[in-house]
């Protein structure tokens, strides 16, 4: 049996790194006394994974988590324990149990939605329109641990549309980004592209970015939830 949960990473802890976030969840699960499966070997570790790493500095309403359990649980009781064991800044939004044979979250996740608020000196919906209508947008993506090396990627393969709203010198952006087995894009990368290639006058460092959803897609390309909504949360 596997426990799946949708948890948050809220404003106050947005600068906790992915690794630190993982360790925090691990400790919370120990505190909650969940019957978690451990790997065999000299240095046993908990069998749990997050669907997709979240960049440092980004908040999230939809981090998806999967935990292998050694025995069946009663979801309601577990969630109560876990709620008390989580630090401020992480809340459980949904939980579900699936059988052990269900494909891993990490293999199923296909897309993420983002919501961005960033100070902007002028209305630039026109510039966003040119991004949306461009057939191709290329970006030199840094290779992780590549010592400054980059590889060219086609942005439109990941992000096709950005919707914008300009109020009070603040630009609100919404977009969906594909997650593929061979890679994805970071929200900040899109902001840099808009700034550098489409003359959208934003200060990327001041952007308040939130991941609002993580999901799979069906054969027709439509969003498909990875987790059932439990009614007692």
């Amino acid at each position, binding site marked *: 049996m596997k426990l799946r949960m949708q948890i948050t990473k809220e404003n*106050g802890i947005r600068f906790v790194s992915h690794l630190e976030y993982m360790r925090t969840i691990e400790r919370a*699960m120990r505190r909650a006394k969940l019957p978690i499966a451990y790997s065999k070997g000299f240095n046993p570790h908990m069998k749990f994974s997050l669907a997709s790493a979240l960049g440092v500095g980004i908040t999230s309403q939809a981090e998806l988590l999967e935990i292998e359990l050694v025995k069946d649980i009663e979801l309601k009781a577990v969630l109560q324990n876990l709620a008390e064991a989580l630090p*401020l800044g992480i809340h459980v939004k949904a939980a579900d149990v699936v059988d052990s044979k269900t494909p891993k979250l990490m293999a199923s996740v296909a897309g993420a939605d983002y919501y961005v608020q960033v100070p902007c000196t002028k209305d630039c919906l026109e510039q966003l329109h040119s991004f949306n209508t461009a057939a191709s947008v290329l970006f030199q993506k840094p290779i992780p641990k590549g010592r400054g090396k980059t590889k060219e990627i086609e942005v439109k393969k990941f992000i096709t549309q950005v919707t914008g709203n300009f109020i009070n010198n603040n630009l609100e952006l919404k977009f969906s980004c594909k997650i593929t087995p061979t890679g994805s894009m970071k929200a900040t990368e899109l902001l840099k592209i808009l700034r550098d290639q489409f003359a959208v006058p934003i200060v990327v460092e001041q952007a308040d970015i939130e991941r609002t959803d993580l999901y799979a897609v069906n054969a027709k390309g439509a969003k498909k939830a990875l987790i059932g909504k439990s009614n007692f949360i």
Partner: protein
Amino acid sequence: MRKKISLDILSTVEKPARYTGMEFGSIIKTQEETEVAIALAFPDIYEVGMSYLGFKILYHILNLQAGVAAERTYAPWVDMEAKMREHALPLTSLETMKPLQEFDFVGFTLQYELSYSNILNMLDLGGITMLAAERGEEDPFIIAGGPCVFNPEPLADFIDFFIVGEGEEVMVEVMNLYKEWKKAGKPDGRSEFLRQVVKISGIYVPSFYEVEYLSAANKDVPMGCIKEVKPLNEIAPAIVQKRIVKDLNTIDFPTKPIVPYGEIVHDRIMLEIFRGCSRGCRFCHAGMVYRPVRERKPEVLKELARRSIDNTGYNEISLVSLSTADYSCLEPLIHDLIGEFKDDKVSVSLPSLRIDSFSVGLAKEVQAVRKSGLTFAPEAGSQRMRDVINKGVTEEDLMSAVGAAFANGWSHVKLYFMIGLPGETDEDILAIANLAKAVQGKYKEVTGKGGAKVTVSVSSFVPKPYTPFQWVGQNSLAEINRKQMLLKDALKIKNVTYQYHDSVTSVIEGVFARGDRRLGKALYLAWQRGAKFDGWSEHFSYENWLKAISDAGLDKDFYATRERAQGEVFPWEHIQPGISRAFLWNEYQKSKSGELTGDCRNGDCVGCGACPTLEAKIIDWKSNAL
């Protein structure tokens, strides 16, 4: 006005989670719940400060009190400090993000002398008037405690009062007094509070004392030394005696410490198994000032361990004390803990090992992953020198310990030594290299093959107050450098790694360790000219410190390298840890002939004075059970 640290600042500094708090177990009280607010201030970065057990204890004890809100603050790293100064952001606590200036108390811990510049920097960043004498009614009381409180004089200008000794009880008394005084409308202002708080035992108010210096040499005591330290009023005690908790089993211990998000230096449960150490190593400050030995009961420890594991989710528990292998019931305790926590995947660790095969046996038992080496501290290379410092360890002990380690599969040992010890000769230095070779030889003898890795780590000795070596002149910088090089040449041995510390930091550490209150000026000047994070060698500027000391009209050698006469009055003698001067002097004399002094814990009383002075006794559960 509370200004929030903005996203763009946090996204450009190193490890921003240091500054955002919200960890599991942090305690945030509302304004309505708070009658008195204290910021526990650690003068180093978050990862270091969060590992300090003393503040875990005080945070817990203080927050248990109704009306008391204890919060935390740490020194921002230099990148963050630059941003804070650029945007006029004050240093705040992590809990309520309140600027230090708005607290009732800011309490610093004095862990090491080289953190003093950070204290000044944090006061400045927190918007607090730097000099105690100039502070107004709106300023918090700046207080300090910790190991260096046994010579607080270099900080006398900056600290309103010091807490001498163990804080669990006295801190609560201070908070209660403050609540009363505040409720009464703070009658007669902060000077009146000082007059009231000094009546609590263990409180030292430096402004209530006047220090008179010798204007001419007095026999063998040179000019400039202290003539007399006099209380300026009749309420300040002539001697401030340290406070201790007589029985650790009767006080609360934190079993729900804060669990940080990021990795800190000691990222595990720290279970304090006893206080004090009576082995009597003559260089050791902690061994002298934390007497007597008081153990927690094994049953109490097991209960604390269980609760800590359940509350934190940590998977490691470290049994901490000054000398963990000396805990009277260590073996059964470890067995019980390992058995109890087996299913929880919790490991037990020991912070230090005694040099004997018993300790190696324990290490084997507790260490699941055996890749890392074992560490031993013979402290000196020659038997003569180990006798001088009363280490009580022979070469045979070391050989049997490393032999046991090698037989159990270890192939790497780390050995700690000091150089610059009193009466040290070049032969004593070279004996360190010989010992390293003998350890490698032992490996061959035990395993039949070569290739044992030996790391020799050498620090330079700094004489500390309230040790038998408080009279000793510290080796000069040139002498330490010469000895370091002598040893470097002698340690050009295959598979031996030699590590040594920057000698210049030891000079400044030495000056402040045995300094007087005139050094406050030097500290202030050094800080003004940029001193901070002096314990981090990349930030330490020896030139800045030398200039600050000489601009304050002082001489570093007067404090560091000068041998003191028997009759000299020391700047710290009105603050007492309970160890008699006669005992320390006698120990110093015995050191000269290499005469050993035993451990009173299982033998005769050595007459240090701690038990009668503090009206306390040794608590050791093995002897109690007999």
